[in-house]
């Protein structure tokens, strides 16, 4: 097992390195001089030269990459052109809302989708099953921002149950924090519910045909007990895998949801930085999101090897 864990961790290094090279090259492969692009139309030749020196653009490309990644590993992503702060402190400021939104979304989505998917599998072919499948097709098709605006329209503007936009820090009180975060999380959870309910249904369906489920039923266990302790428990691995892979969808959704609800998180920072052509920030945020995605999936993979005795490598 340790051998496998070691190999699995080593195998992510080339992926991370490739991501780093791609993110780095994005800026270098831009048509024209990146320094001139950053400086803008009104810049003088001197401004451009200054930026070029600041970015280290006057050095060979390979050297530039290693300087950039070396500093990045120490948490130094340079200084934002737009915010006039270090990128690291900018990210530290913005990470709380994003983490809060993502966490609440995963919790809500799991609480809704897993029971729905299990029920659909248990009553396969019934109207419940058809409704769950319909929800999952619709969930994939409705864009996050459309869901967001419809929810704002109904629950904030018409009913007045939730504030329209904005974010409150956790330090300023848990009640207000949760109240403001609820609508954005429900919005983002919709897409996730579609993905998760479908996967839960498929994997529970598979397990329901197993011998041990029939044995459990035969010895007279109540249906609910069979579903939760026998079926769902054994279907957990593919469900958790989908949660992990869904992190990519979630990150994309965070960018959009934060813009709709005006939440000052990393997603908004990405869009603002792109619009301001603030490349050091863009690079750092994309790198951070991609690394987080890879790391979460690695962690999920490794958890199986530890928790599920059937998985042996």
């Amino acid at each position: 097992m340790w051998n496998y864990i070691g190999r699995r961790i080593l195998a992510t290094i080339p992926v991370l390195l490739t991501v780093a090279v791609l993110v780095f090259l994005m800026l270098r492969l831009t048509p024209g001089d990146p320094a001139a692009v950053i400086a803008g139309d009104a810049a003088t030749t001197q401004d451009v030269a200054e930026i070029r020196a600041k970015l280290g653009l006057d050095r060979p490309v390979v050297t530039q990459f290693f300087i950039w990644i070396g500093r990045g590993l120490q948490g130094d992503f340079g200084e934002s052109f737009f915010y006039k702060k270090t990128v690291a402190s900018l990210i530290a400021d913005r990470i709380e809302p994003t983490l809060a939104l993502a966490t609440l979304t995963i919790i809500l989505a799991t609480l809704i989708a897993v029971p729905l998917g299990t029920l659909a599998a248990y009553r396969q072919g019934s109207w419940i099953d058809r409704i769950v499948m319909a929800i999952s097709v619709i969930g994939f098709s409705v864009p996050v921002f459309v869901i967001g605006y419809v929810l704002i329209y109904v629950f904030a503007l018409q009913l007045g149950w939730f504030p329209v936009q904005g974010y409150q820090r956790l330090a300023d009180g848990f009640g207000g924090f949760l109240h403001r975060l609820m609508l954005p999380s429900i919005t983002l959870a919709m897409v996730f519910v579609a993905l998760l309910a479908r996967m839960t249904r498929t994997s529970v369906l598979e397990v329901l045909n197993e011998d041990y489920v029939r044995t459990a039923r035969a010895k007279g266990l109540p249906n609910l007990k069979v579903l939760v302790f026998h079926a769902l428990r054994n279907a957990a691995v593919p469900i958790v895998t989908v949660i992990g892979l869904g992190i990519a969808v979630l990150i994309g959704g965070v960018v959009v949801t934060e813009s709709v609800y005006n939440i000052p998180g990393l997603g908004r920072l990405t869009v603002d930085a792109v619009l301001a052509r603030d490349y050091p920030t863009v690079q750092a945020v994309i790198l951070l999101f991609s690394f987080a995605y890879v790391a979460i999936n690695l962690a999920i993979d490794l958890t199986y090897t530890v928790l599920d005795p059937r998985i042996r490598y």
Partner: protein
Amino acid sequence: MIVEAPAIAAGKPGVWLRLLRNPSVLIGALLFGLIALMGIAAPLLSSIDPGAINPSNRNKTPGYETAARDDEGRKITHKAIMGTDSLGRDIYTRVVYGARVSLIVGVTVSVLSIAVGLLIGLFTGYLRWLDGIVMRVMDGLMAIPTILLAIALVSLSGASLMTVIIAVAIPDIPRVVRLVRSIVLSIREEPYVEAAISVGTPTIKVLWRHVLPNTIPPLIVQATFTCGSAILLEAILSFLGVGIPPETPTWGNIMAEGRSLFQVYPHNILFPGAFLTLTVLAINMLGDGLRDTLDPRMSKRL
């Protein structure tokens, strides 16, 4: 448990009939056809210029009778069934013309990503020495969240229809490569491929005659889903302000324009949002149905 009928390979007689019998394919295709027709017939469905700005008609609610004067000074009235935006442009007209951009993006992106992905996938699956390097690059590309990769690519190359199409297609390529490669890897072990290689068939011919036909059914399914997600992604990019230039009528742009006044005039967002949703829903239904009919193995996996 429903026992699935034995799979019949696509291309044999009966595939069209089975497609027609699938309600998901039928409804999806019909709905998509209607929206495509709307985009093609846009100039017939509205007599107004989608870019026409009219300050006196700003922010009108749906159903308002707008008035404008033509070049000869005659008064033209027109009922804005979906209202107008903050520049006085007719939402209905912009929504109808917006279908064009969405369809162009959807179709071009799927063709582009399938073509490039197929080419890379065929060769990497077949030629072992290429496999390692190419797949590492693909893994790296897939680790970057799609929206972020697309946003970064557009922002670097400047926003236009062309760059948006390329930026939306690039994140999709690794998915196609993986799909094609997995098919190639299983097909190349088949006895008939081994036989073909053993009698000295050139690589290109083996790929063309024996491997390529096997990739077609799953690729049709993939192309359909790619078309839907590309339309969605283009709308998101436009909505965030990093997509196609704002004066072009696209569903994402109409919504982006309506953002600031959403609380007062929600129709600016709700109408294009509804069309966008319907379009993507139609394509996804079509994709689901195609997958069940053309590629039963894949439908079991998900």
